[in-house]
């Protein structure tokens, strides 16, 4: 509980010690709370407070830069050529510049989530007041804001507390962005440390946004049995008016759903969503439907399925409005961050706005009042739907055949395709009446539309792919579990021990966007593989949708096949982008609830604990955005490794360990103070993988931690070796680096591994009480 700008003025006061006159006391902020945990060493860290911790990680996992551009063109000194060690006019070299770009990306991501949180919190405070209590899980979640508690030392209890915490994160993000100005920070590792700090601020901002919306909108509260939600374009009843919401901020959608409910229209219309708004809509209203992840915006707008398109913020294709215009679907821009050039109609009468949109007088409007968005969207959809249902938006096959004959075979379509798809042969075949090659592109195409932009004869290639894939598209009927929010304290108590000892082999978090190299099935395959192996599989955002978009041999989606609890073999969707801190929070709560470590403002100790003991790995198979960068950065800072799919290499910097350098893998044994070599565990902090098979093997390996018991290590190695043999066809080359004692050897592979150990001159070592922090040593060595 906090109070800002407290002023006490005493004109005259008689006391036992004398007379006090004209005393004025001014206090910037009074903080009181009901949290009796002692304050740790780093509450509300400034941008350099945790620099030493960051540098420890960056020394272990050094940046490997892969610049996307040889130039810097951020100031008028430039453009400066920074190739191969040259310094620019400001003095920066390419390593500094590359890390500066990383910082800028992470700041954009952190600012976006914090801006989102600010909008949600301000809106809810205006509506419900600062004293509105937070509740993310009742008695099941007593540690309700683990990230915020850890970073700031504050235990938020009301919406007003969230407002104060956001003031802190906003100030930090401002400092961080300022460090990227020309003539400020000049060292690549300091840029990297600041990027880590941006990640910390990002995690806090996301947590605040989700705390606020869970509490006020009554989303599922840490519910392992959150409802199963219909997902896929085939689940939508197109006889009804359809409102399609795209983006991340649920507030305008709440306005739409409330209006529908108030007017008893909720079973007479369809509210469908793309990207994270879709997930949060279903947390508010379980009859809302998810039609797909971010990359399918073009697919579903151009497909003509929406009668009204409502755009809020983040990851909204900036040509959504133009695409909607093509299919005569009115657009409502509902976020001040995404005005689309539309006239602000927030204060106009609803009847006028509806009339203008229905008549087509204007293609879209901006409305910043969510209740008004709700009424306008519903009324427009009702009136427009009967007209729109008669429209055809995609060309017929015979038209495609004729249009395809215009192809000049220049191959610019394939050369512009991020997946390097063989588009030209598919168009050539279509011109001959063979659509099978176009159909093959449907699954792998991410719907970016770059092929069309490149085509010199303006063939609408994406529309052709959609038409050919239309039947498949209309058969998409799956389930996604609604975002459950936090992990319960009792769940942490159940799994904390087995996780830390390694007996549950790890937590695999499949998060992030949908810039997949070959469609979303890879996400499903990876998730299912690890759920069957009884890892804890956590999903969020677009990856949560992709994970649910395929079925097993019994016709069950992943969320029907596996339980939704934070347990071995569970598959739980925490929610949207801003729900990601529940994953970090679960790891933090393992340290706090299971291991009884204080978390209040105690960042280094908790991160050290997680890094050395909690076998968690993030996989952002289709990461594309700056937000994904800042989300990853928040995990790096906690010492949690993150893998990205092949497109993730475009983040231009990996944080990589060197398994061939034994000196890099020493930790301190907190019992003795001795340095102990624990091998490359985990080997990398940020790594790109090329194929899903490689991702599976790397995930299994990156779950290994120094603290594993022999039983836990043996189990983890069994998974690593098994996956490696299956996908690579051979034994892993580095088994000897992960075996500390004979007991670590998986029993079924003993003979084979003992031989490998002999070949590598292996020596037995001890299993330490691992830490990277000298202050954690209980007994200093004499």
């Amino acid at each position, binding site marked *: 509980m906090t109070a800002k700008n407290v002023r006490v003025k005493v004109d005259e006061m008689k006391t036992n010690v004398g007379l006090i006159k004209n005393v004025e006391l001014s206090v910037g902020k009074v903080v009181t709370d009901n949290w009796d945990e002692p304050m740790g060493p780093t509450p509300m860290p400034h941008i350099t407070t945790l620099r030493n911790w960051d540098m420890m990680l960056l020394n272990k996992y050094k940046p490997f*830069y892969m*610049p996307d551009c040889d130039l810097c063109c951020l100031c008028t000194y430039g453009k400066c050529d920074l*190739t191969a060690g040259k310094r620019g006019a400001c003095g920066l070299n390419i390593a500094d510049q590359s890390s500066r770009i990383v910082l800028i990306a992470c700041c954009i991501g952190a600012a976006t989530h914090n801006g989102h949180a600010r909008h949600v919190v301000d809106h809810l405070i205006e509506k419900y007041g600062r004293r509105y209590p937070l509740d993310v899980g009742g008695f099941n979640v007593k540690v309700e804001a683990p990230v915020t508690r850890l970073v700031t030392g504050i235990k938020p209890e009301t919406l007003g507390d969230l407002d104060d915490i956001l003031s802190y994160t906003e100030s930090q993000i401002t400092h961080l962005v300022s460090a990227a100005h020309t003539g400020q920070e000049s060292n690549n590792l300091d840029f990297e440390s600041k990027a880590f700090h941006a990640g910390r601020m990002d995690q806090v901002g996301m947590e605040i946004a989700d705390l606020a919306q869970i509490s006020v909108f009554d989303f599922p509260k840490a519910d392992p049995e959150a409802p199963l939600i219909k997902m896929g374009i085939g689940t939508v009843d197109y006889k009804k008016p359809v409102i399609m919401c795209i983006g991340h901020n649920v507030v305008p959608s709440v306005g739409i759903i409330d209006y529908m409910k108030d007017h008893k229209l909720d079973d007479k219309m369809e509210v469908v969503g793309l990207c994270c708004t879709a997930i949060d809509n279903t947390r508010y209203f379980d009859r809302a439907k998810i039609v797909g992840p971010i990359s399918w915006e073009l697919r579903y707008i151009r497909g003509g399925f929406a009668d009204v398109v409502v755009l809020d913020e983040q990851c909204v294709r900036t040509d959504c409005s133009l695409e909607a215009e093509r299919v005569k679907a009115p657009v409502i821009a509902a976020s001040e961050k995404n005005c689309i050039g539309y006239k602000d109609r927030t204060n106009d009468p609803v009847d006028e706005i509806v009339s203008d949109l229905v008549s087509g007088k204007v293609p879209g409007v901006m409305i910043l009042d969510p209740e008004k968005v709700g009424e306008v969207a519903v009324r427009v959809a009702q009136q427009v739907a009967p007209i729109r249902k008669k429209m055809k938006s995609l060309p017929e096959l015979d038209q495609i055949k004729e249009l395809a004959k215009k192809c000049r075979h220049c191959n610019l379509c394939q050369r512009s395709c991020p997946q*390097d798809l063989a588009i030209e042969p598919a168009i050539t075949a279509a011109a001959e009446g063979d659509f099978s090659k176009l159909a093959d592109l449907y699954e792998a195409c991410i719907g970016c539309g770059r092929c069309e932009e490149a085509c010199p004869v303006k063939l609408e290639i994406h529309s052709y792919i959609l038409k050919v894939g239309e039947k498949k598209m209309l058969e998409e009927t799956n389930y996604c579990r609604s975002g459950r929010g936090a992990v319960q304290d009792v769940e942490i108590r159940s799994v904390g021990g087995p996780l830390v000892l390694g007996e549950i082999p790890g937590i695999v978090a499949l998060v992030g966007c949908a810039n997949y190299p070959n469609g979303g099935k890879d996400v499903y395959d990876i998730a299912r593989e690890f759920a069957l192996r009884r890892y804890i599989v956590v999903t969020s955002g677009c990856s949560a949708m992709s994970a649910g978009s395929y079925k097993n041999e019994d016709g069950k989606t992943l969320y029907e096949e596996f339980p939704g609890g934070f347990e071995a073999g569970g598959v739980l969707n925490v929610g949207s982008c801003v729900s990601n801190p529940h994953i970090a929070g679960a790891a933090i709560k393992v340290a706090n609830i299971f291991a009884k470590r204080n978390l209040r403002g105690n960042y280094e100790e908790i991160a050290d604990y997680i890094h050395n003991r909690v076998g968690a790995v993030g996989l952002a198979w289709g990461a594309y955005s700056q937000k994904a960068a800042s989300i990853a950065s928040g995990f790096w800072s906690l010492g949690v490794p993150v893998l990205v799919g*092949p497109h993730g290499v475009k983040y231009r910097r990996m944080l990589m360990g060197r398994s061939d350098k034994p000196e890099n893998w020493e930790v301190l044994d907190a019992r003795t103070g001795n340095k102990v070599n624990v091998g490359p565990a985990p080997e990398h902090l940020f790594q790109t*993988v*090329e194929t899903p098979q490689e991702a599976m093997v790397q995930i299994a390996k990156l779950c290994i931690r120094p603290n594993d018991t022999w039983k836990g290590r043996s189990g983890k190695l069994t998974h690593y070796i098994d996956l490696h043999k299956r*996908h690579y066809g051979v034994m892993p*080359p580095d088994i000897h680096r992960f075996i500390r004692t004979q007991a670590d050897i998986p029993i079924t592979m003993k003979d084979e591994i003992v031989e490998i150990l002999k070949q590598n001159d292996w020596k037995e070592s001890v299993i330490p009480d691992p830490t990277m922090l000298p202050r954690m040593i209980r007994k200093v060595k004499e």
Partner: protein
Amino acid sequence: MSCEPWQCAEIAATKKANPIPKPEIAVAMIKRAARPLLIVGSNVVSRCMEGKPAIDFIVDLAKASKVPVVATAHIVGEFVKRGYQPAAFMPATDIGNRVVDPDWQGLDGKGHPDLVIFVGLPYYMESLILSGLKHFAPDLKTMTLDNMYHVHASWSFPNASLTEWASNLKVMTSKFNEGGN
């Protein structure tokens, strides 16, 4: 044959790869290197020419040239199936991160490679790893054997058809098999 980057937007380079006009030139440059290394990516399994995957051509080339191979991603087993044992296998960024280190003494511990040859990684991955080497290992020479022009390499074949790619690889293999300098 074009020396524009295969992916149209990959243009932001001030130092661009010299085009390899014919496969014999590539062979000569590889023969001139004291410690060449060939990094082979996963696309050699999925890309086909003349009715067989590109890895078949690469195995022939590797055997003929005796250049040690690092297989990236999961494809080591594909080599083994074809009776060829790569010198090592590891993730693409792992080998990139080793090569960029001037103190790395190569796979055999006997010295840093002086020529690193790439083939078959996803275009954008290969491009960015080559960029990392161009900037941070400026004395290292790099080459690509793909049919896609890579601007960040020291030497790259121009954009070419699959037929031309197959032909280039076969010519290289035959020249190595012929021996001599």
